[in-house]
């Protein structure tokens, strides 16, 4: 073949979409990388269990004296806690390990490699890693939901009503987190601002009606925590009309588009400023 012009061989097609194959390999490789540290998983599970016990204890303190937290019964409030734990697990499994790396990709310049791959860069930075650490919380969240649902006599309809709002909550959470993580293009120092978001989201442990008026406004319209946990729980309880779910849908789509636009916008700065 010496000196002769290279003719690319025809690309054999893969089964399924390229993104699906890539996604599977992403996760397998990050599982393999984490398997190097087995003790971690045991510690994470223990910690999740302790945290769940603690949160239930904390919630119980409100009900001990006969107070109905924001007008919600004990089991109903447990639903909110269950959705929160589920989302928390999702964040630890996917959002944290991926989006917190954006800052180091930018600081170390390895973002270059990602931008030069013939693949959507938002997909890459969002789906590249998977952490087992979040799995226990997802499970505990589901268990809490199952327990509370059983006490409330839930059937298939209730669960079905709740599933769409939960999916929308996942989208909203992802978009918020992603948009904030993308700001690290400008503020690169040691850490990114997602931990501030995480601390504000703690409010989602409780039904939104348990908050005084001003914070209720804040957690609905400024930072849509209400859509993350309260709306899904209300949907399961059949307490909310289609209107609220529709709003959650609109919020989710808008935020998703916003995160996408914002990513492109911030990359413009990355690509015109780096040296």
């Amino acid at each position, binding site marked *: 073949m010496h000196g002769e012009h*290279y003719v690319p061989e025809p690309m054999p097609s893969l089964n399924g979409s390229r993104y699906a194959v890539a996604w*599977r390999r992403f996760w397998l*490789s990050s599982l393999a*990388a984490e398997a190097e540290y087995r003790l971690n998983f045991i510690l994470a599970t223990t910690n999740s269990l302790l945290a769940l016990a603690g949160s239930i204890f904390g919630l119980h303190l409100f009900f001990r004296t006969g107070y109905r937290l924001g007008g919600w019964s004990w089991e109903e409030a447990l639903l909110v806690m269950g959705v929160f734990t589920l989302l928390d697990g999702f964040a630890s499994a996917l959002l944290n390990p991926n989006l917190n790396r954006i800052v180091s990709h930018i600081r170390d310049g390895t973002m270059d490699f990602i931008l030069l*791959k013939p693949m959507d860069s938002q997909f890459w930075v969002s789906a590249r890693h998977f952490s087992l650490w979040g799995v226990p919380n997802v499970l505990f969240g589901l268990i809490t939901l199952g327990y509370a649902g059983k006490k409330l006599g839930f059937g298939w309809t209730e669960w079905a009503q709740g599933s769409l709002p939960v999916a929308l909550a996942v989208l909203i959470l992802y978009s918020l987190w992603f948009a904030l993580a993308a700001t690290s293009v400008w503020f690169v120092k040691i850490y990114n601002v997602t931990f501030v978001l995480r601390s504000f989201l703690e409010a989602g442990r409780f039904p939104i009606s348990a908050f005084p008026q001003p914070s209720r406004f804040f957690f609905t319209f400024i930072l849509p925590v209400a859509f993350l946990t309260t709306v899904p729980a209300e949907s399961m309880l059949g307490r909310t009309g289609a209107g609220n779910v529709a709003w959650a849908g609109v919020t989710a789509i808008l935020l998703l588009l916003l995160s996408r636009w914002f990513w492109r916008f911030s990359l413009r700065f990355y690509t015109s*400023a780096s*040296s």
Partner: protein
Amino acid sequence: MALIETHNLSKQYRTADKAPTLAGTIRHFLRRRYRTVEAVKDVSFSIERGEMVGFLGPNGAGKTTCLKMLTGLICPTSGTASVAGHTPFRREHPFLRQITLVMGQKQQLIWDLPPADSFRINAAVYELSDDVLKTRVGELAEMLSLSTQLSQPVRKLSLGERMKAELLAALLHRPDVLFLDEPTLGLDVNAQAAVREFLRDYNRRFGATVLLTSHYMADITALCQRILLIHKGQVIYDGALDRIVQRFAPYREVKIELANVEGQADFTRYGEVLAQDGRVVTLMIQRRNLTETVATLMRELELADLTITDPPVEQIIGRIFTKGNAA
């Protein structure tokens, strides 16, 4: 049309200066004064398919900025660039499939896992089937003389092995155009030679076009027939490596050996004295006076030997950069 073509490519940065005091910080915040830095200025060149071209220049000359504009990582302030018929900054997928960028000081391999795992990920991204992946890894690994290293975690590899594995990962999709930014940085002499050997081999075998920056002269002399000399953001020379000597070194080195030690004269009147060691004197003499001066030397001194050579390329380039102008 040439494979890579740039026309008046320029990149300017705006930077703001800040005084280290508190007052400086406040001023920096309220009313920033910007300064424009011209990292790359009106760079035009074209490269044909299959060429190996070296970007040469001191740190901060604009080599990396050029490379990043050609790969589409940064957007030019003005001017145009075209690589394989694409505008790099659009970063269209068909374009990205044809190029690769290897950076000596950054790595894409997964730290905790063997390189093979990273290859599988790249294979998925570039849609290579398992068979193709296997053949290509086999082929490239052989060229790079890598074997068992591919199944060890990256963190356990030596710097040289890691660089080879990086090259393998970057070339799996068999790109037509290779951009290499300091690919031998920090490697020991043997590893440097191995990387060079591989690049030459790859270029020959697949007809790939290679554009590399390095501040190791040996990389450039070993690989590139053509160099682009960059200084302060501008191309000050574009052409064959051996011709640079004539262009930038209007002088030659004349080494004379005197027949006896006595009667030593003042050699400065013949030319600049580079070295004097006993009876051996090395002089630098302007090319245009060469014949005349040599004749004078032979007439006036009793010589045992006389040799005329070109000064080494490193020395010439070093002179260009310190003098800071295109002679």
